[in-house]
């Protein structure tokens, strides 16, 4: 939060800030070092965790491909799709709410686009816009119900999770008789869509043809979407009024309302943001696989929450970071792919994930305790 800014300012700034009476620095504090302000950031635990897990797999799976560009591309791709969701979910959770419906929004908005384009012959980008409209409306309804009724968002979005999943399965089967749809690549506008959502960049170490053993990896554009959204979310969170309102709405809605923050509007916008992220993931998947399936995105809502919590965001809201969610998703991707490279059966992935979540929560509690109490 504010922690980094003030402390990272040069001394001149600090002196200018308190010219007149009293000392600019309190004698009770020896010195707040830049290191300390970095160590009090919410994402610090996840950053160390990311490095530790990378080192671990570099050792146990380094020679089976984890360290190669190809291996790196696979875990970044997994991390990107979850990360797009996690960044948006981080904002929402800092704002004090959950969204479990994103998993079914992924399946539904992808299928809506495919249906409109394949079955009804819409231009693909128009179909994509219609799907976006659907997602945003769902996000708005989630938010409106939560702020109007005061019910826990966990329950409200659990309900919409099932409603949307069931409705899209039923509708799709009524129209097509099946629950999946292909041939999206034959629709009008697919080429442009592919460039936006599914371009792959081949990166190779064979820059000058000098090395005997060439290492290549195919990196999807979703990684750029992920990092771009994370940068935008971080900027919003730390450098805009709206970001301050998110912290306020999550930290203490009543206190925020008392000073005039439009808490309800903030929360509804955050629900629409997570729905938008789910739509974006749906676009990437449908364009990449050239097909939609109503069951896409199952379980993603929980993985996103796990990534956010590993990233240092408090379950109770008011504290956290979007960068942390990036690390959380990266850890998710590295573990999921890393155990494959390490030759362990992928069945064991969930055990790893659950253990990681538990460890992350414990570490975060410890780090946060140090951050707030040590300066008392």
């Amino acid at each position: 939060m504010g922690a980094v800014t003030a402390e990272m300012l040069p001394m001149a700034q600090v002196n200018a800030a308190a010219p007149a009476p009293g000392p600019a620095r309190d004698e009770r504090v020896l010195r707040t070092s830049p290191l300390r302000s970095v160590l009090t950031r919410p994402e610090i635990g996840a950053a160390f965790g990311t490095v530790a897990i990378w080192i671990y797999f570099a050792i146990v799976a380094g020679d089976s491909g984890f360290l190669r560009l190809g291996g790196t591309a696979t875990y970044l791709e997994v991390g990107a799709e979850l990360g797009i969701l996690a960044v948006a979910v981080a904002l929402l959770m800092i704002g004090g709410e959950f969204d479990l419906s994103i998993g079914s929004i992924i399946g539904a908005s992808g299928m809506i686009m495919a249906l409109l384009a394949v079955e009804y012959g819409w231009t693909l980008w128009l179909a994509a816009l219609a799907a976006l409209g659907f997602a945003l409306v769902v996000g708005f309804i989630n938010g409106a119900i939560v702020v109007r009724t005061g019910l826990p968002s966990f329950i409200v979005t659990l309900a919409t999770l099932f409603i949307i999943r069931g409705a899209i399965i039923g509708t799709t089967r009524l129209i097509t008789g099946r629950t999946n749809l292909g041939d999206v690549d034959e629709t009008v506008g697919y080429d442009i869509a592919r460039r936006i959502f599914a371009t792959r960049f081949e990166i190779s170490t064979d820059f000058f043809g000098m090395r005997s053993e060439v290492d290549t990896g195919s990196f999807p554009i979703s990684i750029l979407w992920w990092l771009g959204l994370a940068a935008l979310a971080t900027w919003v969170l730390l450098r805009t009024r709206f970001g301050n309102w998110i912290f306020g709405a999550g930290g203490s809605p009543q206190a925020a309302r008392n000073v005039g923050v439009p808490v309800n509007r903030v929360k509804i916008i955050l629900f629409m943001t997570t729905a938008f992220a789910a739509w974006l993931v749906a676009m990437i998947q449908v364009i990449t696989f050239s097909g939609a399936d109503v069951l896409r995105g199952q379980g993603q809502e929980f993985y996103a929450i796990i990534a956010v919590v590993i990233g240092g965001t408090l379950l109770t809201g008011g504290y956290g970071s979007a960068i942390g969610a990036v690390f959380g998703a990266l850890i998710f991707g590295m573990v999921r792919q890393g155990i494959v490279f390490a030759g362990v059966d992928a069945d064991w992935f969930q055990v790893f994930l659950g253990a990681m979540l538990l460890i992350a929560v414990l570490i975060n509690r410890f780090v946060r305790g140090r951050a707030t109490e040590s300066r008392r």
Partner: protein
Amino acid sequence: MSQPATPSGTTSGPPLVEVRNVSKYFGSVVSLKDISMSVHAGEVMCLLGDNGAGKSTLIKIFAGVHPPSEGTMLVEGREVKFGSPRDALDAGIATVYQDLAMIPLMSVSRNFFLGSEPTKGFGPFRRFDMARADRTTRDELAKMGIHIRDTSQPVGTLSGGERQSVAIARAVHFGAKVLILDEPTAALGVKEAGVVLRYIAQARGRGLGVIFITHNVHHAYPVGDRFTLLNRGRSYGTFRKDEVSREEVVSMMAGGEELEQLGHELAEMAHQDREAGKEMADTGRQFAEEARAVRDEGDRG
């Protein structure tokens, strides 16, 4: 002694804010009945009452949280109806709640500017001017004699008195004309309560009207100019400081029950009160003596 007609003596003109014959019902519960109260510029109005007397309901009416069921509310002589806390803020009425003044996990300067963040840049690049927020927070706090170690530390690391003080400084900075303080000294140590009382006196010195809610007469009497006493949703009336002694205030609040045991303690404190008008420079000493008096009392009993 019933109130609206009584001039405060410190100012002329209409009160900054006033309620007339206000009642508030929650279903069949009568929370407030026929209350009249006002505060002028440069005046501290103490709202006294035991738990459940209706103090909180009354300030929520001032703060725009609840509309009154009956009665009228006036700001500088004009009748108003607040639909939300924002309306009250826009009318210059700032309320500092006991528990909800600050958000513990947010930094001091983020808290200070929450809801009124300074910005720089235009259009999509308009952003929260953190440097200015930090600077202003530091300056405003220094003006009130509060030296926060570091404005980027979470408010949760401040003491209770510091939190209240920051909230008061914030209200003053954002141009509040009326400051409503809900139990700002409850749950504070003797020394910390003294610090908060000093800020209340300073806010009055800067021309604000202060409504100070408390159930502690010893905190109210030294800073208060007038006292309104509530009991079970009704008003005992409003009294100027020269019309009423601390003992009388206590007896009205306590209903005479604990007077015997309080008597000794009060006699000790009474002589200090005459000088209390000249601000709160010696609050600390008063509290020290009060504390000793209480201890002596305990020893005797």
